[in-house]
């Protein structure tokens, strides 16, 4: 750093001393941040966070629901499901064997072995009197003794009553039927060593794996990617008629990380290259380039280190969005440099520089306010992902700005001759139309306003959280087919059931399932996962035993017919199976995710019910109506979308308030109507969005706030410099850089980033084009000297 050497030619007044102290201080801060960054980078190994949950807001009002969703997410995160679709079972099984072999070295382990049958039987058998299906309960309620005996005899004589339970222990088959209904939990069945699902025309082998590390580990992603590619090739070669379908968080995480890395380097290097080229062609000075790059480096350093310190992990979206920041952070350097572009050799060196610096200080300070305010409002959003992006941006901008403000007096080049490009741009302002309120201009203005109005009228709103999600369409299709084939429930929508005791929670769950019956019958829902399927409440078990009291006469008759003892004739009684006992069994471990247990906060017990086949929003609305003191419908997707909508409305009012307030404030400073500059660009952006069918959502509104801030900056700078062509040049360069970096953002595959990119490009272009339109009519003074 050659700042110290330049410090000799400072004016010896107190202000300069203070400034020098601050400049040194800033150097110290940057050194500290570098150290902090290194401490993070060294053990980092390129891991980028692509976890979508990290982006979503936490519902602090409902800790039970959050705990439930978190448990589900953790349970699902490490799971990888492979389906092999084949024309027949044997082929599917052979392919499955081959895939298992290929993946032997992969960072995967088979999912924990399902509960073994004997253990389960042993668990349920002593309590079997309490396990009767609803259908059999109804049958018990309206049959006579003859029918009852007939049913038992028919089972006794049936040669193929394949059951692990003897006729003697289950003469009416109630227990067998109850066990059978457990099978409704999934369509997959074991065939030898393989799980299979059969549909009308396909035979699927199901391979369930668990990752050995987190789905977001880049090491694991790389290895798994290679292993799955090998598997696919292998299958294509040996089993051309077998199709591989994959589903798992890790696949999306890997795809998103890869995409983010690509986009980050594309946007980052594109912006940087363009920035260097433009700076060079406009200023033609190594020192100018040095100042710009130094401010960028300081900005990036501040952004990276502070974000890392505050959030501990970096999200892919932050990095991609952050890469586009180059275009904004570079503005301050450009604004400063343009002021020195006069071709004059600075007389007397330092004192002249200080004069200029003091002259530039107010507009440069004002210029920082607008984007900072826009991003700080982002920091207030309850979306952790957006907060991280805001933190990154705010610290990046602040870092770049501070560098310029503190070091510029020492680093700015003493002599910068005008370049052809600079002259050309400055000339352009002369010929730029200016608003003079002529009749013809009014006519054009009214026509433009009409077109804009029509466009804005077509503006739609959309608050779907899915816009933040960058999903590979191919992976999504595979995932959907896997979910459909295996009848997987939705992981983001569920019923949360609470009760003061486990028994109460189970009873509430059973009551809910009863209420859902019509929806299952009408096909609005196709199934459910709930703990009460596996563990009926004690009340229900007792009721089942009670219902079997009507069998006394039938049992006595059967005992006689079969030559059995009187003991057998007595209806069997047993204490019900309790939740504690059930949960203590290792065999039930794989089902425990449905049971949340006792809450640390209020000591209540809760469980979840997951639904299958839920597709339309209508049904979801009907489900929300089941809410009561013990039952709560949790719909994360809808909730987040709702939240995004609420914040969009809130931010829209902030935007409108800014429209009104900022001009009022500026009016006090400038008196001239600078504020009119921004209005057309904003309305224009909204209109174009309306015509293009881009929905107005939280992120556009935020972006508009940013565009508003930058538009104000342009107008302000131009006005503060009294229509100085050099200010215009600065605006042109700044806008071009912003346009390019955000334009590259519009290429992102994440819909949200694309939206931000497009909105910024539209808004900035319009602001850039309209700003000179409303410039002051002051003499364009610098033009003659700059052409020297």
């Amino acid at each position, binding site marked *: 750093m050659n700042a110290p050497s330049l410090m000799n030619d400072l004016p010896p007044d107190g202000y300069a001393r203070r400034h020098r102290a601050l400049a040194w201080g800033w150097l110290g801060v940057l050194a500290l941040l570098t150290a902090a960054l290194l401490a993070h980078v060294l053990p980092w190994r390129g891991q980028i966070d692509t976890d979508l949950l990290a982006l979503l807001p936490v519902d602090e009002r409902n800790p039970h629901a959050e705990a439930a969703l978190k448990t589900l997410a953790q349970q699902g995160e490490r799971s990888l499901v492979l389906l092999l679709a084949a024309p027949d079972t044997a082929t599917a099984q052979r392919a499955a064997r081959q895939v298992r072999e290929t993946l032997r070295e992969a960072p995967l382990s088979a999912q924990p072995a399902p509960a073994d049958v004997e253990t389960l039987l042993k668990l349920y058998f002593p309590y079997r009197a309490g396990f009767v299906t609803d259908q059999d309960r109804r049958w018990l309620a309206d049959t006579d003794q003859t029918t009852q005996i007939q049913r038992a005899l*028919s089972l006794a004589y049936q*040669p193929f009553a394949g059951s692990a339970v003897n006729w003697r222990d289950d003469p009416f088959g109630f227990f067998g039927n109850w066990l059978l209904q457990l099978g409704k939990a999934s369509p997959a069945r074991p065939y030898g060593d393989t799980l299979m699902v059969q549909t009308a025309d396909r035979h699927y082998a199901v391979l369930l794996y668990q990752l050995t590390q987190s789905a977001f580990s880049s090491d694991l992603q790389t290895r798994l990617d290679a292993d799955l590619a090998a598997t696919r090739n292998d299958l294509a070669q040996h089993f051309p008629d077998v199709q591989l379908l994959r589903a798992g968080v890790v696949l999306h995480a890997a795809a998103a990380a890869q995409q983010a890395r690509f986009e980050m380097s594309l946007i980052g290097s594109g912006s940087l290259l363009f920035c260097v080229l433009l700076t060079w062609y406009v200023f033609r000075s190594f020192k100018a380039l040095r100042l710009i790059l130094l401010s960028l480096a300081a900005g990036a350093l501040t952004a990276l280190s502070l974000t890392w310190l505050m959030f501990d992990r970096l999200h892919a979206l932050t990095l991609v969005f952050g890469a586009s920041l180059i275009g904004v952070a570079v503005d301050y350097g450009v604004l400063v440099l343009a002021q020195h572009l006069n071709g004059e050799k600075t007389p007397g060196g330092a004192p002249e520089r200080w004069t200029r610096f003091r002259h530039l200080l107010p507009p440069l300070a004002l210029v920082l306010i607008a984007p900072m305010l826009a991003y700080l409002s982002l920091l207030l959003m309850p979306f952790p992902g957006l907060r991280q992006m805001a933190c990154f941006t705010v610290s990046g901008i602040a870092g770049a700005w501070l560098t310029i403000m503190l070091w510029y007096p020492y680093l700015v080049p003493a002599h910068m001759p005008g370049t052809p490009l600079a002259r050309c741009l400055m000339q352009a302002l002369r010929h730029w139309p200016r608003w003079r309120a002529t009749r013809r201009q009014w006519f054009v203005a009214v026509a433009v306003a009409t077109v804009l109005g029509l466009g804005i009228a077509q503006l739609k709103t959309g608050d779907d959280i899915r816009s933040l999600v960058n999903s590979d369409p191919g992976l999504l299709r595979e995932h959907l087919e896997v979910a459909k084939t295996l009848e997987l429930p939705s992981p983001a929508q569920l019923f949360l059931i609470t009760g003061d005791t486990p028994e109460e929670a189970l009873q509430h769950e059973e009551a809910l399932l009863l209420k859902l019956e019509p929806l299952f019958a009408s096909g609005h829902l196709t199934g459910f996962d709930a703990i009460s399927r596996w563990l009926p409440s004690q009340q229900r078990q007792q009721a089942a035993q009670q219902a079997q009291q009507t069998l006394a006469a039938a049992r006595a008759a059967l005992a006689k017919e079969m030559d059995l003892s009187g003991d057998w004739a007595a209806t069997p009684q047993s204490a019900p199976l309790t939740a504690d006992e059930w949960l203590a069994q290792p065999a039930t471990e794989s089902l425990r*995710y449905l049971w949340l247990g006792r809450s640390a906060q209020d000591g209540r017990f809760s469980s979840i019910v997951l639904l299958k086949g839920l597709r339309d929003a209508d049904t979801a609305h009907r489900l929300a109506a089941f809410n009561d003191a013990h039952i709560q419908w949790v719909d994360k997707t809808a909730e987040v979308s709702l939240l995004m909508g609420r914040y969009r409305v809130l931010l829209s009012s902030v935007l409108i308030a800014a429209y009104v307030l900022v001009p009022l404030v500026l009016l006090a400073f400038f008196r001239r109507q600078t504020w009119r500059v921004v209005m057309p660009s904003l309305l224009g952006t909204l209109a174009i969005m309306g015509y293009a069918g881009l929905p107005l959502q939280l992120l556009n509104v935020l972006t508009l706030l940013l565009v508003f801030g930058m538009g104000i900056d342009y107008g302000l700078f131009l006005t503060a410099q009294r229509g100085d062509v050099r200010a215009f040049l600065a605006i042109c360069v700044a806008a071009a850089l912003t346009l390019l970096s955000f334009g590259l953002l519009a290429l992102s595959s994440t819909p949200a980033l694309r939206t931000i990119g497009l909105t910024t490009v539209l808004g900035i272009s319009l602001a850039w084009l309209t700003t000179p339109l409303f410039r002051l009519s002051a003499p364009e003074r610098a033009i003659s000297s700059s052409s020297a």
Partner: protein
Amino acid sequence: MKNTAKQMFLLLAGLILCGPGLAATAQTAADPALLRSVQLRLAIDTVIRGDFTQTRQLAGVKKPLVADGSFVVEKTRGVLWRTLKPFPQTMRVTQGEILQKDGSRVLMTLRADQEPTVNAISRVLFSMFAGDLSALAEYFDYQGQLKGDTGWQLSFTPRDAGLRTVIAALSLEGDSVVRQVTLTSAAGDISRITFNHVVTAAVLSADERAQFDE
């Protein structure tokens, strides 16, 4: 992917119904030559029909349960199992459905779209009666012998642990047709079925066809 629940019941379902323990098709534990020889002794025709006498010895029940009736197996449709004594009852096993009737009243239906194991069960039952040994060999290990010029005997044990919790053993005896089936459930109930007057034919009778179709 929250399908841990699924895995659990899978095995259960395998246990409940005499589920398919479709194991490796590789013939590891048996002698394929024996199977081929037996298969050669079996008559091949579309329809097999005959009478049966079935004796069940239930675990913990002293009295043997004896039933008589007739059966029809048709290659493409399935099995019709009609008990006449001690009370009339019909079981129809087709691809996709198992139906049990008491006269005209339906006692039980099990459909493949509700319970996927139905397809495999019907396949095992069909193979058992039709003497389609290769299908059985997919599910079971076997051993046995040829008897005299035309006879044979085969004993099957399930390959799959899930199936073993339902079926302990299955044995078949016969000549050009299956003459006797003995099925021992894991819980200890034993069914012995003897076939009499077994004939083969090319087509179903009109009455039989009606029963399959209804």
